[in-house]
């Protein structure tokens, strides 16, 4: 039945996006990845020399990043460069389509870069080799330090053109870096590019930090810190490093998340053994209590239109997922299956809620519609939780812990991602162990 539904949605999708030119369907898995050739970008010999890298190698490096991005989607099959038939500069002017078709490529990316007046000028094109047509031609200028982002922006534009959906490559991931033995873990806030590069540590590890979450509209992060042994929600500006406590609560605040417009933080406040959900307006600092119930209410997440909130509560006796209006009225339980449900997160597209499910000692990451119907479990493991959506609502990132032995050895925590199709599960490289990932919005829109 599931298969039929998938195929049905596939037809609907391709119908809607009947370009005539090649398209990549992302509503099913990696059954038939599109063969794509990413030519090294041609480096204009007039380019200035720079100290940060060898300019001549830059074109090749950028194309490698683009290839890695494409490969990570499971939707594309980047072809080996040693089979390439044309020089980058010539191919960029106009490819000999029939030659590229010989190596079974269906799409070709070409480009050219020039460094002049300490600016990096980039030009790239996407070619449909079957139809012998140019599909995308774009150019932009940036600072040379941004060269990795250049590759991500190119990847996004091409992904958008071929799938009809916005991309997610020019993005960052905030997470908690973990080191040390399991009973004395040192945790630091960290941030990296979506592909695992440019890792930066935002705290020193002197105090426990948990659950960083990106503001969807800017470079603020909200997280939980045990600074001075007082667990409170903080707000951190990644660019300036300035941070502050959110609200003046006389007890633990935790489980923070931004509203979709970035103007509010929603979180839990625990007092006298009871956790309820509160929001705080970041402009006027007005605090509003949203749930008032003697059970544990936590892990709140707004719908993209801001009208609803999903959260988990044990008011039924066991941890389950609920949806209510954002003023706290019309609370409705949406999970009724066997097992426990937690960490609901509303998709940026609005259609789905991702969650963690615990059943018979196993942990699942799944998605369901916002009324709780259509539950699909995407991955099962010994321990995993805390899904976070890619900005286009197509991929989930979460963390997974491995089982340790009787002395606690062999324990590890890693970041993983999976498409909401249930395909393309992969581990993200991080410098240290990692947990609590949060995916940023697209940096360039």
């Amino acid at each position: 039945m599931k298969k039929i539904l998938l195929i049905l949605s596939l037809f609907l999708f391709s119908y809607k996006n009947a370009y005539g030119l090649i398209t990549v369907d992302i509503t099913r898995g990696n059954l038939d990845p599109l063969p794509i050739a990413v030519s090294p970008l041609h480096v204009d010999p007039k380019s200035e020399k720079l100290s940060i890298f060898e300019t001549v190698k830059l074109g090749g490096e950028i194309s490698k990043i683009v290839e890695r991005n494409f490969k990570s989607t499971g939707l594309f099959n980047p072809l080996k460069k040693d089979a390439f038939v044309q020089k980058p500069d010539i191919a960029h002017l106009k490819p000999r389509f029939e030659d590229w078709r010989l190596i079974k490529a269906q799409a070709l990316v070409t480009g050219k870069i020039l460094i002049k007046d300490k600016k990096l000028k980039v030009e790239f094109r996407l070619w449909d080799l079957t139809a012998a047509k140019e599909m995308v031609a774009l150019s932009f200028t940036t600072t040379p330090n941004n060269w990795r982002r250049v590759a991500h922006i190119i990847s996004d534009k091409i992904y958008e053109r071929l799938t009809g959906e916005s991309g997610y490559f020019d993005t960052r991931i905030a997470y908690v870096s973990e080191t040390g033995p399991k009973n004395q873990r040192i945790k630091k806030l960290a941030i990296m590019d979506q592909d695992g590069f440019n890792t930066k540590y935002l705290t020193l590890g002197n105090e426990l930090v948990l659950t960083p979450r990106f503001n969807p509209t800017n470079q603020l992060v909200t997280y939980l810190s045990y600074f001075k042994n007082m667990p409170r929600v903080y707000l951190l500006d990644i660019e300036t490093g300035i941070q502050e406590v959110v609200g003046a609560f006389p007890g633990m605040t935790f489980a923070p998340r931004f509203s979709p417009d970035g103007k509010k933080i929603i979180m839990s406040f625990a007092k006298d053994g009871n956790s309820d959900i509160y929001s705080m307006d970041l402009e006027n600092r007005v605090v509003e209590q949203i749930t008032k119930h003697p059970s544990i209410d936590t892990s709140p997440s707004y719908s993209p239109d801001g009208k609803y909130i999903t959260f988990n509560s044990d008011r039924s006796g066991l941890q389950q997922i609920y949806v209510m209006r954002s003023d706290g009225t019309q609370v409705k339980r949406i999970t009724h299956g066997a097992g426990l449900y937690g960490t609901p997160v509303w998709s940026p597209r609005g259609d789905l809620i991702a969650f963690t499910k615990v059943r018979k000692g196993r942990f699942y990451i799944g998605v369901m519609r916002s009324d709780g119907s259509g539950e699909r479990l995407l991955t099962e493991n010994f321990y995993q939780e805390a899904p976070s959506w890619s900005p286009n609502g197509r991929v989930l990132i979460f963390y997974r812990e491995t089982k340790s032995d009787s002395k606690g050895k062999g324990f590890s925590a890693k970041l993983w991602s999976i498409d909401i199709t249930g395909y393309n599960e992969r581990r993200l490289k991080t410098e240290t162990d990692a947990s609590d990932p949060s995916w940023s919005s697209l940096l360039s829109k």
Partner: protein
Amino acid sequence: MRFNKAIKNLFIVLFSTLLISACSTAKKSVDTVDDVYTGTETVKYLAKGVPDRVFFATNKSKLTTASRDTLRKQATWMRKNKNVTVTIEGHADERGTREYNLALGERRANAAKDYLMTYGVSGKRIAVISYGKERPVNPANSPLAWSQNRRSVTVKAN
């Protein structure tokens, strides 16, 4: 006489093996009762005969008879030592989601705090903090370790 002694020795040997086997089986079965840890392996003492911690069943914050007994001892000790202030640390095992466990740890710590208060300790002398699943006492992945980690620990704060 000699024969008697031999019998006696045999009896002692038999009896001690019985005892040992009784101990080993008993040890297994008394480590947890109804999902709550009842052993003493991880327990420390605030004073002689005053255990520092109580244990909980999975996802629960209800105090058992044994827990209430421990907390009454803590209350008596605090009433005797009027200058002592404490922090109660609430903990959860690692088999639940992080945020829910933070709330659960807070609920467990407060269950202990409330009980101390009903036995005459002022709430002003008791701070609570939840560590959720962040500070396991036993890092192993086993039901025994998890039961030892589901705890609230009373720590002297001054």
